[in-house]
């Protein structure tokens, strides 16, 4: 049985509003070919398990992985599919290696949001007899969550706008980001309202792209790379399905997922021990909510922490130095991109968006379902 699991290779497409030039299999192959070249590994000789991550309704095909078993190395071999956020592919792949069954696992998440309509697809996540008839989607549900969070903790629109300003400025330094720029709080607060209090600039844009990653057992990792990034801790947790059952300002599922991951990683004080965080800011306010759920500050204190500059790329605890999802990452790929960006920080290979402090421990968080129903936390570290 393997004792430890490491990330040994990462490849990401440039995220773009529309990749009309590639089918989704061809887009997936871009990152698979790149990560194999980077690690010098061969599909047939080295990779003994593959996990893909997308979503049937997003792809417009039942069982979204069956059309790409050729590119992901699943032909006449094992291949599994996660129909959840890409961070859960890391969880599942890690378990497979820890079990001793596999030694080298290829993860790949892909989605082309340009091929369909996010509001219609996300409406299908809601119960058909119940709130689906209202036309609910992730944005409308998020607006309720944002309102509840702002009301309960006195978080201000200006504090939330600071997340957008920070992340889009960070995204300027990230070559794979799809949108970026120098915005002011006033710019954000004057962008068109979509579902109050959420405005256009508060929403991660529609994007096409893919991310691939290779996980390996300790023994294999030592042979493959000089800069393995260890998966120190991992945890997942579901909250209630119906919004009406949840306290939308609460972060119970994330707190449980984080507690599990921190226990495994030996983290007792996340504020001191974590050097950088990449979290799922599908909507700007969620960055603040998830910071609190991860224990990076007190409940209700994330807004002030962002205002203080502590989460800037040069701050005490940088959050989303990559530009986050607001910089443009496709749904389903969100979490694998979070883990990839956190791992690049640990490797010291994040390029222009490498944080200035020394990174020993990074945390990545991904979530699926409206208002973060399912949560996944991955703690990464050096030796």
């Amino acid at each position: 049985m393997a004792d430890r699991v490491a990330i040994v290779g990462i490849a990401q497409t440039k995220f773009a509003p529309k990749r009309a030039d590639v089918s989704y299999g061809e887009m997936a192959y871009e990152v698979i070919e790149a990560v194999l070249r980077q690690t010098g590994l061969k599909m047939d000789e080295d990779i003994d398990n593959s996990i893909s991550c997308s979503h049937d309704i997003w792809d417009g095909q039942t069982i979204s992985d069956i059309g790409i078993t050729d590119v992901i190395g699943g032909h006449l071999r094992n291949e599994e599919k996660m129909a959840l956020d890409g961070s859960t592919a890391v969880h599942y792949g890690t378990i497979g290696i820890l079990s001793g069954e596999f030694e080298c696992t290829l993860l790949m998440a892909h989605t082309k949001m340009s091929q369909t309509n996010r509001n219609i697809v996300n409406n299908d996540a809601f119960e058909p007899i119940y709130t689906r008839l209202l036309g609910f989607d992730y944005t409308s549900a998020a607006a309720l969550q944002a309102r509840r969070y702002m009301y309960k903790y006195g978080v201000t629109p200006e504090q939330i706008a600071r997340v957008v300003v920070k992340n889009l400025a960070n995204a300027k330094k990230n070559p794979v980001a799809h949108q970026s720029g120098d915005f002011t709080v006033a710019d954000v607060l004057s962008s068109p309202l979509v579902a109050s209090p959420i405005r256009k600039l508060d929403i991660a844009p529609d994007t096409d792209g893919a991310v691939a990653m290779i996980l390996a057992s300790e023994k294999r990792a030592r042979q493959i790379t000089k800069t393995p990034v260890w998966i120190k801790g991992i945890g997942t947790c579901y909250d209630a399905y119906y919004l009406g059952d949840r306290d939308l300002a609460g972060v119970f599922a994330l707190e449980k997922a984080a507690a599990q991951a921190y226990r495994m990683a030996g983290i007792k004080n996340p504020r001191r021990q974590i050097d950088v965080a990449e979290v799922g800011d599908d909507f700007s306010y969620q960055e603040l909510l998830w910071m609190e759920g991860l224990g990076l500050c007190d409940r209700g204190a994330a807004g002030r922490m962002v205002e203080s500059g502590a989460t800037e790329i040069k701050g005490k605890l940088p959050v989303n130095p990559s530009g986050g999802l607001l910089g443009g990452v496709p749904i389903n790929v969100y979490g694998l991109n979070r883990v990839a960006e956190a791992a690049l920080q640990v490797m010291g290979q994040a390029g222009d968006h490498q944080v200035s402090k020394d990174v020993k421990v990074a945390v990545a968080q991904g979530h699926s379902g409206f208002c973060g129903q399912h949560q996944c936390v991955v703690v990464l570290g050096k030796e």
Partner: protein
Amino acid sequence: MVQKEQEWISIPMTVDVPYRFAAGQYLTKYLVEMRDNGKIFAVKCPRCKRVQLPPRIVCAECHVKNEEWVELAQEGTLVAFTIMYLPLTDPTTGKPHEPPFVYGSVRLDGATSVLDHFVNVEPDMEKVWVGMRMRLVLRPKEQRTGDLSDILYYEPLPGQVRPK
């Protein structure tokens, strides 16, 4: 005594999600060659030499990139067929195919894969058989649209007799 029947509610709903699927590099070339030049192109694996339809980026067996294109003959052999009695719907038009009709799998000469399409033959077990030689019939050039409907159907080559 008459018992009142229990009522059960069910709600009708059409889950209608619009898509626009990118054909990508390989299928775009295939569809353009068929539409503009009336040719059928496949890819050949550099390692195992399988000639694959539809053209695709990777040979599943060898996991190498397919880069060689080969033009296929437009005649081949029927390897499987079915006579359909279900009015299956064409998802691009929403209209049903009128049953009975015949689907056939034909291995075009020179190909490793088979290509499935309609067979323009009487839906009669005496008139169609595995091993039958077939010809691909394309839509007239001016009517082609750049999708698989540019193939009208297969039709049997003339003068064939069903083997005993």
